[in-house]
């Protein structure tokens, strides 16, 4: 299960936080303070490790039996949290799909402003890539077409 997808800016402010388990609203039903703990854990993880990291270089960590794969793209850092079958390798696949779609939407590694300008589009891409904790689409071409309600080219 993919537990959460989180986008933050360079200062660690949350841009998008999508939590994928619906019955248990947000971070798999954990209470608010635990969720905050998670958020600040991720943001701190980014602050500690993402300095000087190249765009799309993947970093990995584990915390309390879940895996976290994270990276930076332009001014935006991206974190994905998963557990069980979504281990570090599967999450790497997911984050790759997300970064490619993000670059596709923004045309380049986004500044924060660009990211916010394309906010709606980015939400749609995420909706196509991860759906309720499962990976649905990986190909950026396909994601782009789907967000415009166009059928994929290959079939």
């Amino acid at each position, binding site marked *: 299960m993919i537990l959460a997808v989180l986008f*933050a*800016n360079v*200062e*660690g*402010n*949350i*841009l*998008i*936080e*999508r939590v994928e388990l*619906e019955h248990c609203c947000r971070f798999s039903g954990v209470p608010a303070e635990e969720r*905050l703990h998670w*958020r600040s854990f991720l*943001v701190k993880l980014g*602050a500690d*490790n993402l300095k000087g990291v190249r765009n799309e*270089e*993947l*970093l*990995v*960590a*584990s*915390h309390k*039996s879940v895996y976290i*794969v994270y990276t930076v793209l332009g001014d935006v850092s991206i974190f994905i949290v998963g*557990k*069980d*079958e979504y*281990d*570090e*390798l*599967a999450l*790497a*696949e997911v984050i790759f799909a997300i970064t490619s779609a993000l670059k596709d939407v923004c045309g380049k590694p986004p*500044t*924060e*402003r660009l990211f*916010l*300008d394309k*906010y*709606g589009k980015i*939400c*749609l891409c995420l*909706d196509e890539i991860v*759906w*309720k904790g*499962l*990976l*649905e*689409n*990986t190909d950026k071409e*396909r994601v782009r077409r*789907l*967000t*415009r*309600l*166009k*059928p*994929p080219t290959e*079939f």
Partner: protein
Amino acid sequence: MAQPLVKKDDDRDDEAEYSPFLGIEKGAVLQEARVFNDPQLDPRRCSQVITKLLYLLNQGDSFTKVEATEVFFSVTKLFQSKDLGLRRMVYLIIKELSPSADEVIIVTSSLMKDMNSKTDMYRANAIRVLCRITDGTLLTQIERYLKQAIVDKNPVVASAALVSGIHLLQTNPEIVKRWSNEVQEAVQSRAALVQFHALALLQQIRQNDRLAVSKLVTSLTRGTVRSPLAQCLLIRYTSQVIRESNTQTGDRPFYDFLESCLRHKAEMVIFEAARAITELSGVTSRELTPAITVLQLFLSSSKPVLRFAAVRTLNKVALTHPMAVTNCNIDMESLISDQNRSIATLAITTLLKTGNESSVDRLMKQITNFMSDIADEFKIVVVEAIRSLCLKFPLKYRSLMNFLSNILREEGGFEYKKAIVDSIVILIRDIPEAKESGLLHLCEFIEDCEFTYLSTQILHFLGIEGPKTTDPSKYIRYIYNRVHLENATVRAASVSTLAKFGAMVDALKPRIFVLLRRCIFDSDDEVRDRATLYLNTLGGDGEVVETDKDVKIFLFGDLDIPLVNLETSLKNYEPSEEPFDIDSVPKEVKSQPLVEKKAPGKKPAGLGAPPAGPPSTVDAYERLLSSIPEFSNFGKLFKSSSPVELTEAETEYAVNVVKHIFDRHVVFQYNCINTIPEQLLENVSVIVDASEAEDFTEVTSKPVRSLPYDTPGQTFVAFEKPDGITAVGKFSNMLRFIVKEVDPSTGEAEEDGVEDEYQLEDLEVVAADYMMKVGVSNFRNAWESMGEDFERVDEYGLGPRESLAEAVSAVINLLGMQPCEGTEAVATNSRSHTCLLSGVFLGNVRVLVRLQFGIEGSRDVAMKLAVRSEDEAVGDAIHEIVSCS
């Protein structure tokens, strides 16, 4: 530190870089949402408003019920627009708003229309939205369309339906299970992702049907799998089939498939296959080698994700097959300096597991540098690994203990300090040579310890171990200092510890009395009370006499009453002339902590989770048994086995049994749980048939009076056996009880019940049950000092075996003894091996065993068994165990 919760709207005043959401406010956006109701819709404007709503939701703003309903109703109006971009946004916002059940009806018809639309993309999205917001009743209406969608030629539509199926399976399994024919067809799809999603759904539909899963795996391993993701799933299901097939002999089914996946072009698949191989039960070194080789290559990958995955997998392997991982040690050592701390920690803990005695010192040097720049949670993992390393190589206790005491002095949080203190305590208990230095380290620690809990724990421990050392007086200063410098809780604990020294060491008594008398004037009443009490019980009124046995029991004995029972009795006690009588508190343990149920079908979850340590339940068992009058004359409990499951996981009644061995008796403790909420069981007992255990005679049994739902209860059956003989045998068990229906609404049981029985699995008492695993710190010394008076040597042919390692572990298990100095691990490809075992046999007789193995080309294994023990008969008994099996 950044502030994660600060909203984007209250920073940045730079004109050029301002956020499009600057100053966004919920009320205003809700106002703007009225454009959804315009007769002439402006798709662009509407999309912008939806984006703002999404932004608010993503930032954690929540809408009240009224607000959400209002927005939702307006959004539904947008279905009138034919604009594609807007329609896509509408689908998303409906999902995000997750309307309540009574509102869903408003969009259902629009979505149903889209679901049958000619536009494929409408269909796919409508399916996803409907499945997200639907309930069971609506699902039956749309089931027909969903089944069609699964086999739709457009892969997006098919995937949407399949992924919806995976989610719906949680809430409406009976409906989704009806789709298995369509899903089966989708598994053959040429579209990679459709196959992936179909495979996941099909396996979940059929997960309880072993045969079907096995067939699925067989056909797919021969056919084509189109994406690495699906290939990973297939590997996972394959290992499940292997686990469940339980074939002990011959080639393992599907091993070749797993092995071939190690050469797949996708890294994900290679890792999945390598992990599957390392997790095979009873994996041989021949099977392991190819997997370890590919993992080793990844250790030096430039991608952190791959390094992490590799070291994580090897870390797990090191738990069970340390020797198999030693080849990777050099690569792993270079990972200690990895920038990624998770990788470095995993590398260190793996090295600690696989290293040999000679590499310990070098390793400790590297770790010392590393410890200063990692977080507490990683440090705890390292401390635990060092603890087990020290138990494995007791001769190295000096450098390891020094390391622990050094890190104890450094900064750190409670959990970390607790892990260190726990480790030192365990080392003191298990390695006698380490006791004095360990106690002094602890003493120094409490001089400057900010955690009351740890101080009191250490003081308690000092009270028990300190008086037994050669020079108990040197600890007194540390303890008495606490009386001056600490809070009341710690002061009270120090008083108790002083009293224990006084009771045990007569020479110290007069000085202890002086100290205790000073405590009578403490500002805290608990401290004063304790000081007074101990002065009285120890006879501190001037005379120095030898401490009574009763007093010692009072000071050192465990409180043999369960605290829960004491609490209940105290609550029930009404103040009166009659004092509270502690003897009136029942001693029977009502419920025991549940042993973790084994679930053979499940993969062990969690990363780097430390293996469950041996439970310290022996004391608890002893107390439990001695509180039962029927067993009171059985003498001292020699050994209690770990629980053996007598039922499959997830059956109506879960029963496991613990074998308690006494000199002339064996007691079976059946731990039962009733997992059916609608039932109350009464008079629960186990009927044991001992016809295949001739030496045993049943003497008594003790049923459980009542076993309500989910409350553990214990029933006992006791057998007599001839003294000094390692009687073995097989027992068949039948659970017998009276079952009463329980009304779920009131929770009350019916008056009348029906007698019923439930067959349990058989249970065996084997020779190893009479042996306690007790290690020695230096086998050679122990062997020499035991002398050869009672040495018994003989040679045995063990016949053809799978491997040398397998033969070694079989003999270790047969004898149930503790392997010493890491000799249980056999080097790959070696032709001979020596294994050293130590244990205590029934009657508290120390036994040491030296096993020498040799293997021939034909896989025939020969073994030379040398036993030394304090009792001649025990040496013979060991040989008898080996020769009889």
